[in-house]
């Protein structure tokens, strides 16, 4: 070899990157996570535990009615009873399961629709892309809460119609994001290499594209979940969302709203309608804190290159 420095390909210095397992990298990230992210993660796990074990944690049944409506906070009913005498605490606990469950199913559905179509549009391009993109443009020209209201005035509010309507409306945003991140991956040379090899569309999607668009999609899942959650809560609050007797935080706020006028006389009663509202707020705050940190992390990684 005429290179006196003893050049060898395998000795070439790569980028400064220490080899670590995935678990090690996660642990390093977690240790560096800001307080807000830790707060979010702890709160979130609390909510999940409550939702999973609702029947064990709740002192009474979801729709169990007691004789005193608007009962005060006491030993038997920690947070009093509602307008027809149901235990507020129990309904709060069941509400976690119902409200979060419905929001989760809706978000999953909206990702299945929006994500799938977004990928197809990004890879196929051409008229398929045009058709889907223009449809989405039009659907997004109507504010989704308003659109949902119009649809709910036609189809009677039920859990199924609620999930379908919100999922379809929300999938437009998922479509846009998926399409745009996937388009930036589709133009990469390694996708071209796969096409030149004659790989099938499904293989290209699964092996080449999906793994590379996961981080923004995961972050978006958090954001969409909290948005869907707030939309359902707002609809229930307006009386056209989840219907009684299913316990749900949005309608609980509505049902107990009048108690707030009595705050001067009984401060605790004044707090009652705020409890479910705070439960909604705390959950979305927690999700947003975690997502904010995650976005910061993944976009930071992108800056390195």
């Amino acid at each position, binding site marked *: 070899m*005429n*290179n*006196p*420095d003893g*050049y*060898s*390909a*395998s000795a*070439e*210095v*790569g*980028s*400064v*990157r*220490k*080899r670590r397992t995935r678990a090690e990298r996660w642990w*390093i990230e977690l240790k560096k996570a800001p307080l807000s992210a830790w707060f979010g993660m702890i709160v979130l796990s609390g909510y999940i535990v409550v939702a999973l074990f609702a029947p064990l944690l709740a002192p009474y049944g979801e729709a169990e009615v007691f004789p005193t409506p608007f009962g005060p906070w006491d030993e038997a009913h920690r947070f009093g009873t509602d307008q027809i005498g149901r235990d507020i605490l129990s309904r709060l606990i069941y509400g976690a399961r119902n409200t979060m469950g419905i929001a989760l199913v809706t978000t999953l559905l909206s990702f299945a629709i929006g994500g799938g179509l977004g990928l197809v549009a990004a890879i196929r391009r051409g008229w398929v892309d045009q058709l889907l993109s223009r449809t989405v443009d039009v659907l997004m020209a109507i504010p989704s809460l308003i659109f949902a209201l119009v649809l709910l005035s036609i189809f009677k509010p039920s859990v199924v119609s609620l999930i379908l309507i919100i999922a379809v409306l929300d999938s437009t945003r998922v479509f846009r994001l998926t399409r745009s991140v996937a388009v930036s991956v589709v133009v*990469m*040379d*390694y996708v*071209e*290499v796969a*096409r*030149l*090899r*004659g*790989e099938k569309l499904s293989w290209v999607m699964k*092996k*080449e594209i999906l*793994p*590379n668009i996961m981080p923004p999609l995961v972050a978006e899942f958090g954001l969409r979940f909290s948005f869907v959650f707030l939309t359902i809560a707002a609809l229930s609050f307006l009386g056209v969302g989840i219907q009684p007797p299913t316990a749900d935080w949005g309608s609980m706020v509505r049902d107990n709203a009048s108690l707030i006028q009595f705050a001067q006389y009984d401060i605790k009663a004044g707090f009652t309608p705020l409890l479910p509202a705070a439960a909604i707020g705390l959950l979305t705050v927690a999700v947003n804190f975690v997502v904010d940190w995650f976005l910061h992390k993944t976009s930071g990684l992108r800056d*390195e*290159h």
Partner: protein
Amino acid sequence: MNTSNSHGRGHGSNNSQSHDDQPLLRMTDIRIEGFSDEQWHPIIKGVDLTLRRGEVMGLIGESGAGKSTLGLAAMGFARAGCRFTSGTVEFDGTDLLGLKEKERRQYWGTRIAYVAQSAAAAFNPAHRLIDQTIESASRSHVRNDAESRADAVELYDSLHLPDPENIGQRYPHQVSGGQLQRVMTAMAMSARPDLIIFDEPTTALDVTTQVEVLASMREIVDKYNTAAIYITHDLAVVAQMADVIKVLRYGEEVEQSSTRTMLAAPKEEYTKSLWSVRSLEKPEQRSEDFILQLKDIDAAYGKTPVLHGINIDLPRGKTVAVVGESGSGKSTAARVVTGLLPQTAGSVMFNGDELPPQLSDRTPDQLRRIQMIYQMADTAMNPRQTVEDIIGRPLEFFHNVQGREKEQRVMDLLSMIELDESFLDRLPAELSGGQKQRICIARALAAQPDIIICDEVTSALDQIVQEGILKLLLRLQEQYGISYLFITHDIATVKAISDEIVVMFQGKVVEQGLKSQILSPPYPEYTELLLSSVPEMDPEWLSNLLNQRDRVL
């Protein structure tokens, strides 16, 4: 180049008269660290640098040598994510690192100016060129606004910009890259700084444009007797610009001496190896046994025609280099061969049979026999797949090899490209530039192709690494008789690897022939321009070339 301080410079010339013997810039024991992957890594490991007034220093080195970081350090500036850990930057008697950022800013733009690599990105799209040109000058109150504007027009004129009176009224997107780079030089010169940092200013330009930009930069630096630090990885370019050359490697100084001494008698082994890179040359061979023939190919992107009736013949087991500037259609020709861009007329003959134009109409065997390697190995590998996945997939797909056998074949391929099995489970991010390109070569080899299309495969790499890749490609050709269609804009690479050369210009083939024919006179006009624009390692080359061209005109 004279080093006396004879010209009346705007600013700083008065107080400097007394200590003319004192250097303009003295950097001592500069150490800089960068933060990545959760830890601080040294980037500059204790470099000294001294620059006299009016002197031009060339900083050369490969990527990762720390030349840009050192250049910016001369301004007392470290990019986000970097920090100084020791050292002093004494500029005209003041230690810039000892100043507060606000005080340091008084020097930036007015006494030390910076010329960035990508002019298109470094200009603010929202403002007119002239407003950006005079920004520093008006801030420092050297001249009033009207004077600055008049001066800017003069600078444009001396940088040979077309229509100097009005070009400043344009916006950045309205002028070409080469012109923008010259406007940026005018911008740096506007406040008549004592020192300009040129950070790879011509790297992004085409070779024929580069010559003019280099010439006008050198002229204006001479005219105002400005000191400069010229950062580049191209030895031939630095030879035209610098009085002294400093060679950097891994953040350390290798050696420094005057340009002539450095070119004639480099002391260190590393420097010598940089010089020797250009000596590689394959002996050419003629052959009439064509494996691939492009016949009267027309192609278009949408309605824009790109190729006009081109003919290219590739002999079996030989290398045909396709040269031309960006936009000449050489990559488009490759896309036609691969089937990514079906031609609008003409035919591609492979082993005597016509290849279907559409990718989807080709058989797996046809796909297997033509492989492609890309310029950017970074984007040609899925960042989430390991080396084993990347090389293993074509084995699995074309040859239906699985399990243990596949692993064994991948290891064989790794040894073919001079890497070992420790690379099996690495991700692309854990490889160096040269290693990445080798993995891409292995992936192409895995298919056992007849032809490999190489699209600028070495142009993103450092010169020593380039040489390694070129040697590997030559060896593989010898062993397996693979034919290469080698697309490049770099004449040195062409000399190294090709048997035949195709020169392309504006979507047409100017000529095809044996290397020796094409590279010796008489040339067609365009080939002449292209060949004469390639910088040579002679410090007089640029001056001679300009004299020659003047005489012709």
